[in-house]
Structures are given as structure tokens and as C-alpha cells.
């Protein structure tokens, strides 16, 4: 097991194990300092962000919406966790010089070419479907995958199984015919 990977990153085993320690420390620290155990997650923050944006244009719609009311549209612990992910990735990539401006990702480029518009349409459509699914299931790979499985939650194991099974199926259909 090498400590560094070919692309200058850390071994995924090492970085992952450290994330496991962070998840434990975070559960402990939030219980001690906030009086409530917090688990890593991300998708609920997209509901809160969508609600905050919608409040600017149609506040009455947000106020009358059952799901927004249930989720509570506000900037909470997890919202700032997601903001922190951006900052942490920026710090890490700038300091190890892996920061790259990229308009179309590899694999996608091999299959669909250099068009930014095509990538935008694919990403928006995929994003709509994925987030509807994540909210329906009440979690994403962070909430269900990491936090759910760490707590030995049945829903975490089943959700991760579905994410990967359907992901493998759709990826084979979408990227199966690549030029390289």
C-alpha cells in the first residue's frame, strides 16, 4: 500500500481512514459542544439553498411549502459543512498544485466531445434526477453511504447498493460506446 498515488494524491485507504476518524471526532464534538450528535451529510443543504434562493423570488411559495417547512430553510451546521468542503478542496488543491480549471471532464469528453453545452445539459438533467432521488431516499453517498453505514443502518446499506447497481447500469448504457 503506497502512501502517494501517481497523481500526487494520498492513498485512498489512508485519506478514507482519516475521514473515518473525522466522522468519529465530528460526532463526538457536536454532541459535546452543540448538545446534538451531527453526522456528515450534504444533500439536505441543497434543499435549504434552493429554499433560500426561492425565498428571494417567491417567499410565499416557500412559506406555504410543506417540504421546506419540514426541512427548515436556514444556514445550519450541515450548510456550513458543505461550504467548508469547497474551502477545504480549494486549500488542498492549491497547496499541492492539483488545482485545474476544467470545462469538460475526461470520460465525458471521450464519449460526447468538447461541447460545454452538451456537458451542461447532461449535468443539469443528471443533477435534477439525482437530487430528487437523494431527497426521496433521505440521503446521498455522504448521509446514507458514510454516516448510515457507519451506524450500521439498514437504509444506508440498501441505499448504497441501489446507488451503485443503478449507477453501473446507467454508466454502461451512457459511456459504453467511447472512442478510446
Amino acid at each position, binding site marked *: 500500500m503506497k502512501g502517494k498515488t501517481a497523481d500526487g494524491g494520498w492513498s485512498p485507504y489512508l485519506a478514507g481512514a482519516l475521514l473515518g*476518524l473525522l466522522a*468519529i471526532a465530528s460526532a463526538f464534538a457536536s454532541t459535546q459542544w452543540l448538545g446534538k450528535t451531527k453526522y456528515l451529510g450534504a444533500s439536505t443543504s441543497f434543499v435549504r439553498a434552493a429554499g433560500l434562493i426561492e425565498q428571494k423570488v417567491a417567499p410565499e411559495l416557500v412559506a406555504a411549502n410543506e417540504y421546506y417547512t419540514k426541512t427548515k430553510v436556514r444556514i445550519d451546521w450541515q450548510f456550513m459543512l458543505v461550504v467548508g*468542503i469547497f474551502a*477545504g478542496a480549494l486549500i488542498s488543491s492549491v497547496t499541492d498544485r492539483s488545482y*485545474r480549471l476544467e470545462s469538460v471532464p475526461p470520460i465525458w469528453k471521450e464519449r460526447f466531445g468538447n461541447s460545454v453545452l452538451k456537458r451542461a445539459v447532461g449535468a443539469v438533467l443528471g443533477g435534477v434526477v*439525482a437530487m430528487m432521488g437523494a*431527497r426521496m431516499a433521505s440521503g446521498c453517498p455522504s448521509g446514507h*453511504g458514510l454516516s448510515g453505514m457507519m451506524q450500521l443502518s439498514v437504509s444506508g446499506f440498501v441505499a448504497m447498493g441501489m446507488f451503485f447497481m443503478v449507477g453501473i447500469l446507467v*454508466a454502461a448504457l451512457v459511456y459504453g460506446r467511447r472512442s478510446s
Partner: protein
Amino acid sequence: MSSDQWLGLVTGILFGFLLQKGRVLRFEKQVGAVLLEDMTILKFMLSAILVGMIGITVLAEADVIATSRKSMNLGAVLLGGALFGGGWAIMGFCPGTSIGALGEGRWHAVFAIIGMLLGAALYAELYPFFKSTVLAWQDFGKIGLPEALGVSAWVVIAVFWVAALALFLFFEKKGL
């Protein structure tokens, strides 16, 4: 900022740092995993779970922390999980990694983020419909594997460790 916002921010910075160091934020790593060509994200996630599940179980059994399991609502987890899996393969990011990818310069992640914000708003609009259909099918509640299987948490953890280590050996042997 309040103390919960500060704690969230600091935890998030460390989370993002580790995601970036593990090189798991990238589109090609996520799609590479579902194409069964590059198992980096699975190695990363499973390693986090292997370590995390021990600490979380010890602290929860000692009543130092509370658990917060998500409900095993059959329709929600199966259909929601399937929709997420399909959308994820096309988008190439999950919610947390899209934000991190933006942080490491992959600015096209902004399209995925816009899509997910639209998806969240759409879900909020359609929630009453889902609540009376998919979500109303069958809910087993916030169950854990140990209770479901009638074994100790440590048996589940031991089996998971053996299975994950076997998978790691397989990945390394195949160069995935």
C-alpha cells in the same frame, strides 16, 4: 456566525481537504467507479466506514453520542436510490463532491450544482404527491443491521471488515 455554523465550517474544511487528497472529487473517479474501471472512491468510502463504524459503535454503546439512523422506507430508499444512482452516473458527482470539485477548479461542476438545486426545488413541489404514494408504501423505521439480523453490532462489524479487506485485495490484484 453561531457555534453550530462554526463547527460545521471547520469540519467541512477538513472533510473537503481529505476528499481532495483522496482524489475522489473528480468526475472521472466517480464515473470510473460505476464503469468498474477505477475503484478509488470505493476504497476511500469503505476505509472511512471501516474506521468510522468502530468509533461510532463504541461511543453510541457508551451513550456518549446519539445515533441518527435514517428510516428504512422501502419505496423511498429503493426508488430514491435508483434515481440517485442513474442521475449520479450521468452527472458524475454526488452532492458533496460537486461542491468540492468546484473548489479544485473543475468549474463545470457548477452545472451539476444548478441541476441539483433545481431537483431539490422540484422535489419540494412534488413532496405531497410522493408522500401519499412512494413514501406511504412500507416503512420499517430506523432499523439497524444488528437488530434486523438478531446479532451483536460487533458481529456485523467483523463480517464487514473481512468482506471489505477481501474486496481491497481483489482491487489491488486487478489493478483497479
